[in-house]
């Protein structure tokens, strides 16, 4: 297993390297010149422009800039921010680096059990009105755009009922709304998947065996049936986590949370290349690590899977 993990990590390094290259050049393909943004209304002052360009090394050929960026990544500063004068990228994103994963992980740890519960609940009542009701509810949850849901919740819970703070970051109460908005979609996705897989597994022979030996129905469902749906569900959790990271863009914007998502959007608008690239890189690393964990969890969940297969 250690061997496998090492091998996968090596493979991931390759992916990260590609990501680094792609991001570097893609970000530079974006129209808009960071120096022009710095100059703002004063764009046109050629002397100032040339000076700034030299200050930030933007007058050098692209390959040189690229090598310099790799150096900055390796020394952990990720280079100088274009927008925050005199700050390194790591200074800009340090707080965000804990905030966004915290948001995404809290949402995941709430969404998974809730999703499993609703999915199982609906599956064991397949075809009943309770099932139809839950499905409709889940479809609605999946269908509501997160920005609309956020606005609705703020309007109801913060403004009309004054129960929760409107926005911000720092207190547990300020976590409630953003996490709720993040939870709803993935929870519904997991619930729907769980229901589908449960329906299939509940038809399988070993479930009948469990019942035939007199296992209590609860244990049949939660231990035997659900235990066998975990592999596909865990697979999708990897993807869902990617969705949560993306969801952070919207939620952090709406709730004014200084996480990586909002910093990323700000940096794109400000043409703060080094920050944008670093965040994309971080997201990529984070996301691929989560998927590696998912693959490792597979093998733990399903003894039939050998690590070689999990990689495929």
């Amino acid at each position, binding site marked *: 297993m250690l061997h496998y993990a090492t091998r996968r990590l090596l493979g991931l390094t390759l992916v990260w390297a590609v990501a680094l290259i792609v991001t570097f050049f893609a970000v530079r393909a974006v129209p808009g010149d960071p120096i022009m943004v*710095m100059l703002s209304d004063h764009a046109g002052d050629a002397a100032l422009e040339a000076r700034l360009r030299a200050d930030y090394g933007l007058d050098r050929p692209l390959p040189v800039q690229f090598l310099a960026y790799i150096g900055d990544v390796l020394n952990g500063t990720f280079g100088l921010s274009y927008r925050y004068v005199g700050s390194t990228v790591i200074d800009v994103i340090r707080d965000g680096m804990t905030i966004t994963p915290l948001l995404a992980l809290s949402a995941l*740890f709430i969404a998974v059990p809730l999703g499993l519960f609703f999915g199982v609940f609906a599956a064991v009542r397949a075809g009943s009105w309770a099932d139809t009701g839950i499905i409709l509810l889940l479809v609605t949850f999946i269908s509501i755009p997160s920005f609309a849901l956020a606005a609705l919740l703020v309007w109801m819970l913060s403004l009309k009922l004054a129960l929760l703070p409107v926005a911000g970051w720092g207190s547990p109460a300020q976590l409630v709304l953003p996490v709720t908005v993040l939870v709803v979609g993935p929870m519904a996705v997991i619930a729907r998947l769980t229901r589908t897989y449960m329906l299939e597994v509940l038809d399988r022979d070993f479930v009948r065996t469990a019942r035939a030996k007199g296992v209590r129905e609860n244990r049949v469902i939660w231990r035997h049936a659900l235990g066998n749906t975990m592999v596909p569900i865990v697979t999708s959790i990897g993807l869902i986590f990617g969705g949560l990271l993306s969801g952070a863009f919207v939620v952090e914007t709406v709730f004014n949370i200084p996480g990586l998502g909002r910093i990323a959007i700000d940096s794109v608008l400000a043409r703060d290349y080094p920050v944008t690239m670093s965040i994309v890189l971080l997201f990529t690393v984070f996301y691929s690590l989560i998927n590696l964990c998912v693959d490792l969890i597979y093998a733990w969940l399903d003894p039939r899977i050998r690590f070689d297969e999990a990689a495929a």
Partner: protein
Amino acid sequence: MPIDLKKALGATALATAILAGSGSAMAADLRVNIAADPSMIDPITYSELIAGQVISNMYESFTAIDADGQVIPALAESWEPLEGNLGFRFKLREGVKFHSGREFTAEDVKFSFEELLRPGNKAGLNAPYLDVVVGADAMKDGSADTLSGVTVVDDYTVEVAFTRPDVLFPIYPIYLFDSGIVEEAGPEWYNKVSAGTGAFKFENWSRGQKVELAAHADYWGGAPAIDGVEFVVIPSPETAMAMFETGDLDVMVVDGPSMRRVLGNPELKERAITAARAQVRYLAMNSDLYEPFKDKRVREAVCRSLDQDAMIAGLYSGAAKPLYGQVTEGVAGYNPDLPKIEYDPEKAKALLAEAGYPNGEGLPPVKLSTTEPNKNQHLYFASQLQEVLNMPVDVELVERGTHLKSINSGQTPFFAWGWSAGYPDGLYFLSQLWYSDSPYNRGWKNAEFDALIDKASMTADNKERYAIYHEAEGMLMDDWGTCPLPVSTLMATVRDGVSGVAIQPFGLVPFADVTIAE
């Protein structure tokens, strides 16, 4: 269950608890929203309006602007021109203490100027004001280490010599800072401490969240009554409004769509303070890039097709003022007597026909370019021009940086834009936007106009100078060099119990005199 939920949830709760510890705000801090994280908090690299809101509470210049928009002495108590208007001798205020506790003297003025010009310091908006100072070029290209044009006469007297007359120099907002700061906090002091004389000093900057300032007890104007100021970063006006309503903000700077909301809500409207904005707006028509604009009648037709009153009502919900020239109310040299530009579609059509384009026939297609935030205005212009003149206009949205470069290099034929004053004098607008040699010239050029501007910058007498502005501005308007556009009002709302918050055309007055009841 494969995931240890208890452990996982426990970890989250713990993390939340840790975060909560650092979150509570002090009761006597004034909480104000800013629309974006400032890019800097130091006076050297200072180069954006948002950062200005924060920095102006920490740093001061020779002069300041009071709540009525009038220039008043600040760090300079008085000044007199040197011979031939080639410089000024400033008498500095005595007994002014920096945040470090050191006393402000003439050496600090010299130091500040030098730091602004020193190569590699990435100086921002304030450095260009020093271009007229003797020795500035040598400083900039690194051939001199000191600024020869600045002479420290004694601790409280400093002379600044110019290469050419610049009568407005004393009102330029050049922030002056502590020459002992590098010794005290090291060369990387920018984001760590403040080195000003203002009523507040830097305390903490949580990026993306807030900038906290603390009261400067030794402030020469008297220690502030509040403990500090907290600038909360809130990009969404909707969120800002919600936070103001729930009492999470003491002062809300109102922008964009929120203005409608404030004006539509009697309770909020009552708490609103407003000022004319020190900004001009204009529709630029570059005749080099779009042939029909060469004809003055076409330009007039365009201007007469736009209804400023309708725009103010429909797009600004009334929170804007019409503009009939290129100097705005609240800025010295404003001419209140300029004739109103009437919305007159019939006359517009007639003018266009006279120019050889009856009912728009023969007009080549043209793009009206702008950025996303200004989209609505431009959609209105396009629809009016299509409807009234049958002009083939399309709106094109361009990324901001690209747009700025394009308009500043004179490559955009047709666009509307605004220009905010850097100092409280009408010369700023006239010399930057419509002076032929300005890097920001917007497509109308006139030698007589240029001559008037040159003359104005050498005229020390205010009254005399304003008369020149009026003449030049009249010349620009008579030739329909541009269509002035409405300028939105500056607005802020103030929570009950908070007093002393004032707004002037350049924004909120520093919060030195604010008190919070309770």
